[in-house]
């Protein structure tokens, strides 16, 4: 019930949308009525084409994200715990962090073509640095006294890294991953629109070019909803993992 009230502004927005679209004040091609978009969504959902494209998109996002999270976190912790690695990688991270990741779309397409591999590489590259920085900052912030107490309780240096530095780095790493999650959807859709032959982003571009705006909006909604759900699930999981705080 609480939740229903919290999301009621969305309902108002939906009603406004329908009213404006039906009033004829804006062109139908610019803003099809919401009800038509919903009808279009159910039509799309009845085709296997839609689900194959959705699966392609999901696969690319998750493959890229998993790589970004695992490799990004490892690099971050390695940078925090080893001076030579830090000296080597710090300038690289600093230069690449502010780079607009979408600029890599043509680059990865040039390297790996229009299929899954180029999207996965793009999402991996584009999402890794927030994770790396989160893990790095978190690991650097690991309290010395906790490392000391682990060592005096019998932990080896390596063990201490796993038992103290990694969990100390966790909260900030998880924040970095949340940023990565949002970035991954942006990169996914834009790269599929520009350089792909499948995926939801590709469908948006394809339907739009064909003048099928009801369906185009339906796919836009699908992507937005996926992003929203992913973020929600992620936040719930994060709260569970960090329940000790």
């Amino acid at each position, binding site marked *: 019930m609480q939740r229903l009230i919290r999301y009621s502004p969305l309902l108002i927005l939906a009603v406004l949308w329908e009213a404006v679209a039906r009033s004829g004040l804006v062109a139908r091609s610019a803003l099809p009525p919401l009800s038509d978009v919903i009808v279009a969504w159910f039509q799309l959902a009845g085709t296997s084409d839609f689900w194959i494209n959705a699966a392609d998109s999901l696969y690319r996002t998750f493959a890229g994200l998993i790589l970004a999270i695992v490799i990004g976190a490892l690099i971050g912790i390695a940078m925090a715990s080893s001076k030579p690695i830090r000296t080597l990688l710090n300038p690289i991270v600093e230069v690449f962090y502010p780079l607009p990741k979408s600029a890599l779309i043509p680059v990865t397409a040039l390297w790996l073509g229009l299929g899954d591999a180029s999207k996965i590489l793009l999402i991996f590259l584009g999402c890794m640095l927030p994770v790396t920085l989160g893990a790095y900052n978190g690991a650097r912030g690991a309290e010395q006294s906790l490392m*000391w107490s682990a060592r005096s*309780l019998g932990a080896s240096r390596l063990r201490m890294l796993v038992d103290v530095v990694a969990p100390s780095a966790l909260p900030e790493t998880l924040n970095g991953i949340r940023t990565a999650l949002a970035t991954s959807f942006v990169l996914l859709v834009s790269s599929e629109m520009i350089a792909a032959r499948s995926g939801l982003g590709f469908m948006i571009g394809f339907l739009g070019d064909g003048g099928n705006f009801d369906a185009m909006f339906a796919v836009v909604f699908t992507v937005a909803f996926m992003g929203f759900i992913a973020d929600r699930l992620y936040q719930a999981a994060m709260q569970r993992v960090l329940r000790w705080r």
Partner: protein
Amino acid sequence: MQAPAAAQIVVDQITHMYRPAHGQPVLAIDDVSLEVRPREFLALLGPSGCGKSTLLYLMGGFLPVETGRILIDGKPVTGPGPDRGVVFQHFALFPWKTVRGNVLYGLERAGVPKEERLKRAQAYIDMVGLQGFENSYPSQLSGGMRQRTAIARTLAIDPNILLMDEPFGALDAQTRSLMQSELLAIWRRSPKTVIFVTHDVQEAVYLAERIAVMSARPGRIKSIIETNFDRSDPNLFKQPAFIEKVDEIWNLVRNEAMLAQRLAAG
């Protein structure tokens, strides 16, 4: 007469300088020498900032020994190890582990089998009076409860040497007195060398066999006082000899504390 046992801990002309990344270097302790016999209970007293924790960290192997040497059982300290159990002044509990998880940690590292480990952890949790809080995280505990968790965690690994940095500082008088008896009982039961930092003179006189009083910064050992009272005497705290001893040491410590204040004021 028996020949004196070889010292278990030898602190030999130790000087320690902190060199913070930003700011002035601090000479924390200056030319400290100290010998502690096996099974001895030594209290370390001194004004705030005189280097008590620093000395403990050096013995624990956390800080590098730069000037002088520290020997444990004849071997120079090269790093931390479970032979020296440490109760840290600020507890240093793992915030992502429950009370039970914290107490289990050292036993896991020692490879104690699971059943045995759970039993031992529970025994120490009970000993410090935290039954019912096994699954609480440190963030859900009071300061005194955290401190007791830290004590249980260290005692559970049954170290030869106990380095305790104001281990009862956060406890109320009642709990403190209970914990003192527990510590003494453990010390009697299983041979341990204890170095016990405290600000409480009465506690030091009650628990320790010897008390080292440190001077204000830079810390030096100002005097070492033998104090062996009959701890089983329920009226010990009212005995004139005891009161006199507390008084004598109080004066020593107070002078140093006043000196420390004056130093701080410039």
